């Protein structure tokens, strides 16, 4: 057998950051020692192979810690469901480990427990992910269980009924969460009729689900040539590939090709939407718009701009509305890139009486990203932070494995792992400003608020007309 193996390198920074303060910052303590020299990061070995049936297999050998992580990703997530049944893929994913043609859900749970393992599945808009872990000597059992739940789920009547009943109750429980209501309304407002609007199953879709409808989705989507299997940890490449070939080699592609998802809308309306929540003591704020796909050239510069604006503890929004004003505990911001589009979102939960004041500051900070150029120290610091957190995240087996599977779903190669930080480091201050101008201008943002109807409405009306939504 022939494997293509790559040694991928994660680099931190092209130049060492000095601790010198920029013109925009106060001087640092004179006794503070400088950063040391960055040490090289050992290359990561990734063996790649495509089985004759089309299944892509990536194996990462990382010894020294006695655990294994695995991700099987299959293209076609919730965004590929018919509009009147959106979310059925997620429901199907949740039932994969609830019974196969040869195992009951209890048997699956106990076999996993016996290897110190876990195996769970969920659907993103773009794909279904089945992720697992176990002690390193449980790898053969994990691969077999993974193959069984992926290839031979039986969707037993009783399990489907229970999952439907629990999902319906779970939806009812989630209606009490302000973040759940805010995210659902935000997605709908920025994506319109695009399938990325999906945030949660509706009770009607749950009630209409049957074992047959779940089986049909599974049969249509789960194809070896539409899937990647990533396995990482303290393993032997050759033995692992042999296990994978034995468990997945005779998996046949039988389904139809996936439909193409159209591009997301480029913009959304600048509007103020309020979802009343009786008894709310805070306003749950969402400010944002559609943005770019994970492979768009603006995606990495936007991630960097986000670290500066709201995506880190030292970011401008956190410093402003938390550390200076004390309006909120956990403000944040995130750029999400998916296969055909993405979004940008600033979030904060603030006490009701500072709803307008908080939005003013968020708008100010968003506009400032496009109207002024970020200083060199703040820019370098953000780059270091991105490099460090990327390294931090990918030192965890499960996260590394998931990152690689997501890269594959987005059409990227494992090299994306080693290209990420150099691309971040290459971003210039002017480019950050262009990102600010293009995506962060306050006048282009959709605002969603969940909170006390009367008080929050009065706060929001200071900006313009407010539309009240039911949910």
């Amino acid at each position: 057998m022939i494997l293509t193996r790559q040694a991928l390198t994660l680099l931190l920074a092209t130049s060492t950051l000095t601790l010198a303060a920029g013109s925009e910052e106060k001087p640092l303590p004179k006794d503070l020692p400088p950063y040391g020299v960055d040490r090289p990061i050992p290359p990561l070995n990734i063996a790649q192979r495509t089985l004759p049936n089309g299944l892509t297999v990536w194996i990462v050998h990382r010894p020294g810690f006695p655990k294994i992580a695995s991700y099987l990703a299959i293209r076609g997530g919730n965004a590929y469901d018919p509009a009147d049944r959106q979310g059925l893929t997620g429901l199907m994913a949740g039932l994969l480990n609830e019974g196969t043609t040869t195992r009951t859900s209890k048997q699956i749970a106990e076999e996993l427990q016996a290897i110190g393992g876990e195996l769970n599945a969920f659907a993103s808009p773009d794909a279904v992910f089945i992720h697992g872990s176990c002690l390193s000597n449980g790898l053969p059992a994990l691969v077999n269980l993974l193959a069984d739940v992926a290839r031979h789920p039986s969707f037993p009547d009783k399990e489907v009924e229970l999952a439907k009943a629990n999902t319906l109750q779970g939806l009812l429980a989630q209606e009490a969460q302000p973040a759940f209501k805010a995210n659902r309304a935000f997605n709908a407002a920025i994506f319109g009729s695009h399938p990325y609007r999906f945030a949660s199953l509706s009770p009607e879709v749950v009630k209409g689900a049957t074992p047959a409808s779940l089986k049909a989705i599974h049969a249509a989507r789960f194809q070896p040539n539409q899937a990647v299997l990533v396995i990482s940890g303290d393993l032997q490449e050759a033995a692992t590939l042999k296990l994978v070939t034995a468990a997945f080699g005779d998996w046949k592609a039988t389904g139809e090709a996936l439909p193409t998802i159209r591009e997301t809308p480029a913009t959304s309306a600048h509007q103020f939407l309020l979802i009343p929540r009786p008894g709310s003591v805070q306003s749950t704020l969402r400010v944002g718009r559609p943005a770019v796909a994970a492979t768009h050239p603006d995606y990495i510069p936007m991630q960097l701009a986000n670290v500066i604006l709201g995506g880190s503890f030292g970011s401008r929004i956190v410093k402003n509305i938390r550390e200076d004003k004390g309006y909120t505990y956990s403000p944040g911001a995130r750029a999400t890139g998916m296969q055909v589009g993405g979004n940008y979102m600033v979030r904060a939960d603030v006490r009701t009486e500072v709803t307008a004041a908080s939005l003013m500051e968020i708008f100010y900070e968003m506009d400032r990203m496009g109207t002024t150029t970020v200083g060199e120290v703040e820019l370098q610091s953000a780059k270091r932070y991105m490099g460090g957190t990327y390294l931090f995240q990918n030192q965890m087996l499960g996260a590394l494995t998931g990152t690689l599977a997501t890269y594959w779903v987005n059409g990227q190669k494992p090299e994306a792992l080693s290209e990420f930080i150099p691309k971040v480091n290459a971003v210039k201050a002017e480019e950050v400003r262009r990102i600010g101008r293009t995506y962060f201008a306050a006048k282009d943002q959709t605002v969603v608020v969940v909170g006390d109807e009367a008080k929050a409405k009065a706060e929001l009306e200071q900006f313009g007309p407010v539309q009240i939504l039911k949910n």
Partner: protein
Amino acid sequence: MRLGLLTIFTLGAALVAGPAAPAKRPSWRLPIEVKTLPNGLTIVVSEDHSLPTVGVSVVYRVGMRLEPKGRTGFAHLFEHMMFQGTPVAPKGVFDRVIQGGGGLNNGSTRYDFTNYIESAPVSALEPILWLEADRLKALDFSPQNLKNQQEVVKEEIRVNVKNQPYGTFWLDLPGAAYSRWENNHDGYGSFEDLDHADLKDVQAFHSTYYTPSNAVLGIAGDVKPTEVFALVEKYFASIPGKPKPALPDLKEPLNTTEIRQVKTDALARVPAVAVGWKMPARGSRDHAPAAVLAELLIGGDASRIYLGLVKGKELLLNASGGLNFPLGGAWDYDGQTLFSLFSLYKPNADADKVLAAIDEVIAAIASQGVTSAELERTKTKMLADFYAGLEIPLSRADALAKAQALWGSAAQLNEIPGLIEGVTADDLKRVAATYLTHPNRTVIDYHTATAKP
């Protein structure tokens, strides 16, 4: 930037795959080196050179239980003040230096300790140690910083408690189950007490509890112990030693009468039940059996409560719980803790039905024990989770510092797999019969505002 080398090679004879079920659990230990400075600061180091990163955790042996009366929530408010700058490094410097070094930082307050953590490329270790030493020396005790963090903490309580359904179950259970103020008060704090906190309180707390002898510094990752000891000495040795503050014994006997409360939650849409039992002291003979029993009862999809009540009787929507849940794990508490569970229950259920079903599960273990297959599987899963909790340098530094602070021995962390191994079916019977009793049980039934009476 350097892209990966592309090589093609042929594999030799394929290796034989292992058996379907592992015959033996893999054993794995952390290297541990400990040193105590003359001023009382203990340093624990664990080296691992697989990636050039480092994790740092400073654990102070003070938590919610030791905060002053009339100052509920103060230990946590104080934790926030630790990020508000010092006379030498004003507000903002701490985050700027750590973030600029590619690092992350955080802090958390628990019943018996408060920890401050950083993870970064190892090139940032020296400035991080300097910053930790600096805030152990003195804080910027300014009224503006205190006022700002009083507001931030109140927002934290709003977002996590007041604006959430069942936001208070983890405060309600100890509040009802324990009788001593130190154990049963609201550690997040009343807004009134938080507002009354003043700078004198902040200064006194720092002076009493934030001392070298009351701290453990854990460092793990791409470091050599001798180099770390030298660096820590450089920045911490000049901090004057003070006597270690007294640690009162706050343990309570098991309860002798069941405590049961009903709360109506205006925000909740689905009813829920929280149940807690007082459990054995950390390090006692019953501790490890209690940990294994908790795992066996509610540790996941193969646990008895999941299989019996979520599946089986279909009374619960979900089942979450554990020893020292939800503020910690089975090994990082001191004194005593609760075995707690929290579940949403379904329209066909009520608290009595749920409790009766849980009683059945417990009675079966207390009377018949468990099979060796179930016990072995449970131990394997616990071991896997224990290792998972030590995967990255940050978790190692934190677990080691906590073990040193709470158990008095960082090396104890490597003994935990052995403690799990040693638990027998008879231990489980005994612990189930001793602790998981009606008189020792506290139940809080959360009704929705519109629920049946």
